């Protein structure tokens, strides 16, 4: 049996009294592009730091490529390509110098491949890093993360601070060079539309807990918005998991999990409803910022206008 690329089981991590990861559990299979989503300060970077052996967990087990990063940090880093959030490299080095500098750290470093990637990603080799634009800096980071042919690539909010065109270009590069080669990619982000086109699987992290992990298509099919009357919504709320609800004119728009079963139930009971497909951004918002308060079924009081 092949080990998963990453396995997190009941991982907890606190900084003094602040609990950042709370029994976080997820699994990334090899060859998949895994989107790790969460709001700012949800614990994404902490989880990645634990994977890279840069932080020690308080409890739980972690396996990266079959190794425990707490006991084999150097071995894990050799086999993983890592692009940190807002990565700051040595500004005084030229791009080609940093490629040569990094080479000895990785036994599998392929310098020809590094130069090829640099050319593909339009990285100006003769320019000093401090003179690179934000986009060039990120792309240089990607070259460094890929040139040793890692089995697993961990990208921590790589497109942070890039403009929309740059982000698209970055994702295009990612698809071309990583998914084409069948590598495992762990892509952390708080921008869902950014990972939507590239992710095979998604995990949503909220205040240190994984609130949902599923395939991208499965998630789209499973979470939908149902618009129905307040009374019907009140009846339904007790039986299904409602992630979010908000008024929609006289009706209520519910975002529900297990949409297929909910729709079946509504049809069986003959309740009038309307189904709205959601994009991943809306699904993410429902999980991390959804209104979970009980639905108030307001009684209409006859006013003077009704007369």
């Amino acid at each position: 049996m092949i080990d998963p690329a990453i396995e997190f089981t009941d991982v907890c991590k606190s900084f003094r009294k602040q609990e950042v990861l709370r029994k976080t559990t997820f699994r990334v299979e090899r060859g998949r592009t895994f989107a790790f989503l969460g709001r700012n300060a949800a614990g994404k970077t902490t989880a990645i730091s634990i994977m890279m052996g840069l932080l020690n967990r308080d409890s739980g087990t972690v396996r990266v490529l079959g190794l425990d990063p707490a006991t084999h940090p150097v071995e894990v880093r050799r086999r993983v390509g890592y692009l940190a959030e807002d990565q700051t490299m040595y500004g005084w080095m030229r791009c080609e110098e940093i490629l040569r500098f990094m080479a000895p750290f990785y036994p599998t470093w392929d310098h020809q491949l590094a130069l090829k990637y640099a050319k593909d990603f339009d990285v100006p080799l003769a320019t000093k890093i401090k003179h690179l634009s934000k986009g060039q800096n990120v792309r240089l980071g990607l070259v460094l993360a890929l040139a040793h042919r890692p089995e697993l690539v961990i990208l921590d909010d790589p497109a942070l601070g890039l403009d929309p065109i740059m982000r698209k270009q970055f994702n295009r590069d990612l698809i071309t060079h990583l998914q084409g080669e069948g590598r495992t990619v762990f892509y952390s982000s708080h921008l869902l539309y950014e990972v939507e086109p590239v992710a095979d699987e998604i995990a949503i992290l909220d205040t240190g807990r994984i609130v949902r992990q599923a395939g991208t298509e499965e998630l789209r099919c499973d979470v939908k918005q149902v618009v129905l009357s307040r009374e019907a919504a009140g009846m339904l709320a007790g039986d299904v998991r409602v992630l979010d609800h908000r008024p929609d004119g006289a009706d209520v728009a519910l975002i529900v999990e297990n949409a297929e079963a909910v729709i079946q139930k509504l049809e069986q009971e003959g309740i009038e409803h309307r189904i709205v497909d959601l994009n991943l951004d809306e699904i993410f918002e429902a999980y991390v910022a959804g209104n979970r308060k009980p639905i108030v079924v307001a009684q209409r009081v006859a006013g003077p206008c009704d007369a």
Partner: protein
Amino acid sequence: MNSIWKSLLWKEWREQRWRLVALTALILLPAGWFFSYFAAPTIMPFTLWDNLSILAAFANCYIVLAGCFLGMHLVGGENALRTMRFMQAEPTAMWQPGLVKLFVGWFVAVLPLVMLYSVLCTVLPFLIDENTLDLAIKRLVQQYGYTEKNIYGWSLHNLAIGAFGVTSLLLWMSAGGVNRSDEVRAGAVGFLVCLSAWMVFGFLMVWADKHSTFWERGLLYLIPALPGGPAISLGMPVVNYKQFITPLLAIVGIASHSAILYWYLRRFGRIAVPPKRAGSFEFNLSRWKHISSDPMRSQWRAIAWKQLRETGPLAALTVACILMITPVVYWINVSNRMEKSFGEMLGGITLSASFFCHSRRGDWCVSRRLRPGYK
């Protein structure tokens, strides 16, 4: 670059070579003064012996300056530039970059001294007749109790003192300031650690002086373990050579500094999250935020307030240090029946502390504010 060591050495050399230039320029100043004695002997007021003494004294000051300057940059630089995270993510144990940093720092500190004394040894015999030079050296060695007979021995001895002193101070400063968020903090903490070590030693000596001659003599064997102590202890057996067991001094020095090196290597780069506040030199004074939340009406007031917030804590720390150190030193002197007025001592300590404070502050202004990306 075909090995990790070579790669790290290259990086460190590229980062520290300008510090070598700065330190060489620093040591060139007294050297320039010294050689101007030969260029314009009628103008120079001092004798050859005076000039050699001044040069040697400055070389000893250089030990402190180079040790502090390099120590703070070695251990605070990566965090200040926010490159520590990148370094940590490289597949190598953190003690390797830590060791290379220290080695290159040591090389950068010692090389100007080697150059200075090499030039002296090479050039002086050509400039001065042998008898005059030997006489000056003889007077020097008699004054300080050394045993060297000629310029070569004297230079070698001074070089050894410099190298030992710089190595020790660099180690203490690095170990004390390791993992601080910027150079200023690293320098301040490192310096305080060094100062505290000497203060503790001073207290122990005063205590031992009053209670036991055995302990007093025994405590002197701790000198090689103190910051810069190996340099001082190098002269001890010479001055009182029958009173000290030289191998024991060496063992204490080597063992203590090895332990400090081990501590530094164990700690270097082992920080959970590099401090994000590295870009702003500001102590947390949130508890004393001014009560009024009205916006400041005057630009001058705003600038003055900002400056006070940035420099106030360092100034307060300096004043506190002066007030703490002066009575202690005065008390030690009085206990040892050494003549020195309190005012004179306060002045001396204030000057030294102010120099330290200004150098730290100046270094911060130059190295941080002119840096691209300063926020």
